């Protein structure tokens, strides 16, 4: 092989590798990302059965009900629409009524959102950005401080 051919082989190999990697990335971006919804948006959203999404909003006052064992039910609200959520496990330390929350999971039968994770916060003043934006968009945002 001449030098030029050799160089072309190397560049060709690298290109093929990069294309493979970009293909993989694009595919994963299509498949493995989840959309974020506020309760109002969830009413009109077209979801495939079993599609993973994130649901965010405020934990509705008085909605937390502890059931059998590790089961817990609560509702996420944007003050207009409310979605019931069921979750099994330990809730984050800063999970409280009327606080911002982001949950991840799927919409189950009867419109109950079955969450498999509840995103925790580390800081009591911290509001997940999506929730803050969603509340601002509906004009229901009140600064907590």
């Amino acid at each position, binding site marked *: 092989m001449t030098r030029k051919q050799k160089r072309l082989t190397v560049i060709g190999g690298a290109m093929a590798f990069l294309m493979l990697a970009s293909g993989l990335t694009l595919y*994963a*971006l299509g498949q*493995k990302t*989840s959309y974020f919804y506020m309760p109002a948006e969830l009413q009109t959203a077209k979801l495939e059965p079993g599609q993973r999404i994130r649901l965010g909003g405020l934990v509705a006052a008085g909605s937390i009900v502890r059931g059998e064992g590790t089961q817990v039910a609560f509702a996420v609200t944007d003050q207009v629409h409310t979605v019931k959520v069921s979750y099994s496990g*330990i809730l984050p330390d800063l999970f409280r009524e009327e606080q911002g929350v*982001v949950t991840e999971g799927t919409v189950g039968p009867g419109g109950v959102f079955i969450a498999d994770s509840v995103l925790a916060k580390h*800081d009591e003043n911290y509001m997940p950005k999506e929730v803050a*934006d969603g509340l601002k968009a509906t004009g229901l945002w009140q600064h907590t401080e």
Partner: protein
Amino acid sequence: MIVEAGHFALVLAFVLAVVQFAVPLIGTRTGDDRLMAVAAPVTIAGFALTALSFAALTMAYVQSDFSVVNVWENSHSLKPMLYKVTGVWGNHEGSMLLWVLILTFFGALVAWFGSNLPASLRANVLSVQGLVGAAFLLFVLATSNPFARIETPPFEGRDLNPILQDIGLAIHPPLLYLGYVGFSVCFSFAVAALIEGRIDAAWARWVRPWTLAAWVFLTGGIAMGSYWAYYELGWGGWWFWDPVENASFLPWLSGTALLHSAIVMEKRSALKIWTLLLAILTFSLSLLGTFLVRSGVLTSVHAFATDPTRGLFILFILMLFIGGSLSLFALRASSLTQGGLFQPISREGALVLNNLFLTTATATVLIGTLYPLLVEAVTGDKISVGAPFFNMTFVPLALPLLIAVPFGPLLAWKRGDLYAVTQRLYAALGGALLTVLIALFFVDGMGVLAAFGVGVATWLVLGALTDLALKAGIGSVTTAVAWRRFRGLPRSVFGTALAHLGLGLTTLGIVAVTSLDVEEIAVMKPGDTLAVANYTLRFEEMTPFQGPNFTSDKARFTYINAWGRELGEVISSKRLYTARQMPTTEAGIVTRGLSQLYVSIGDPTADGGIVVRAWWKPLVLLIWLGGLVMMIGGTVSLLDRRLRVGAPAARKAKPKVLTPAETPAQ
């Protein structure tokens, strides 16, 4: 008074940083030696002033001076002394001050140890360092002043976020910042080389120690952060592919690539332009990380008080430095001379492969991290990119790289023989295949992919050992000769082997925990038992406890092995920090060998029990021990005679260590 002195010192440090930027640069432009000589003393003075300012803030914390807003917001008179001190950087303002302190510290190190550098290069490096420092000092002074006072001082502080009241805060941020900011030196060297339009192998030799040092710190910072999140958050996870984690992982990936390409540049003076670009990119990613963490534009589980308006300022700095340095790169890179040639199958080729994979992986993680911002800007949809994305893209990219690692150090420079190298790795390959079989047939619950992962990890470990054994000539010469050769190996050879070995250990830990961990969740009342893998947990009792600034409920468990022997206690608790009325969970962790039993408790249930979540985490400690071994490897390599900071620059007479293939018959 002390506080005002600290503030004033910081203003002076800013002024000196501007001087440090402008005067030496004019000096190198006009060829005036006196102006260039200004750089070093000004840099050191700037560091001293920043240190003074930092000390003043620390003093305010130690004395619980609540007339300072920052102290009032983040401290409490009852807080243990350790957390009073570490609380200095447990908030936005103080943390940025620490950032700047470390930046000026690295500048001062260059000024101290750079006496062997050509005068103009040193002046340019310090000048660039000065510009970075000036930008961030201005940021602290203008938007994040930690010295602001309150008119009527409150009697008591609001306490530090309880999650931060941990020894982790003492170690993690300083290490991480030493890593992030350490790459600023590589950046300054790269920009200085572009300003001068000249770059050679000596440049790579000067840059490598800085890259190595920053890399060692960053490795430590990430490993420490991971372990801290693991034990503090109480969910048993050690890596969440969270934006804040990715922010630290990105410069690590590209820094690792830089470390390897700088070797090629130093040894073979090839890949010069690429190395320069990587140096710029690595620090750019550090800046991006700082921006992502401080601005809170991405939802993160690790986000602490963030402020979008300040984020905008950092974004501006980010664009100035990334845009500026890349423009300079575009203008000047073509004028740099090309280096030595090599065959695709060679040490250089292996290092290029390493760079190809690492930079692609960096790009993938970067895309995944920023994609939500992009989508929101374009379509307004809010999406999240989580672990499934990264597992799908990063893991397939990392695996071939891991498999290729043991080949690299064994290949000869310029032209290597892949077949011969494979033959020398037969033992390692055999060992790896054997562990795959053992894992597949003798370990319960081990899937094919996981067994393959164990094989890759073993391959890395044995490959690193093979490298050392072959370079010492074990097996081909007498033991005495081999031992003498082994001791005579350059430290960088040990460094490489240790770093690769550490990588293998971390891989093994990750594979074991991902495939074999056992999670149990149950509601327990005193006397109840819960089986977790081969252990049984018995819930004994809940006892109240009064800490210095918190109250807590401690749940005491006894853990029992498979033969019914009681081995000891695990205590997991819920704390309530009184000043902020903020609850935290303290996981109970028992270490058995390299594995851990991890117990965390939740809220009480209606019928008087508590929710208990327990994990068996096999070989989990290897994840961080591997990181530690990588750090040791980096440090050993840093101590190599060749790289010793301050050693005479031009020296060629290094005794060349022959690999057995090259050794003439003895």
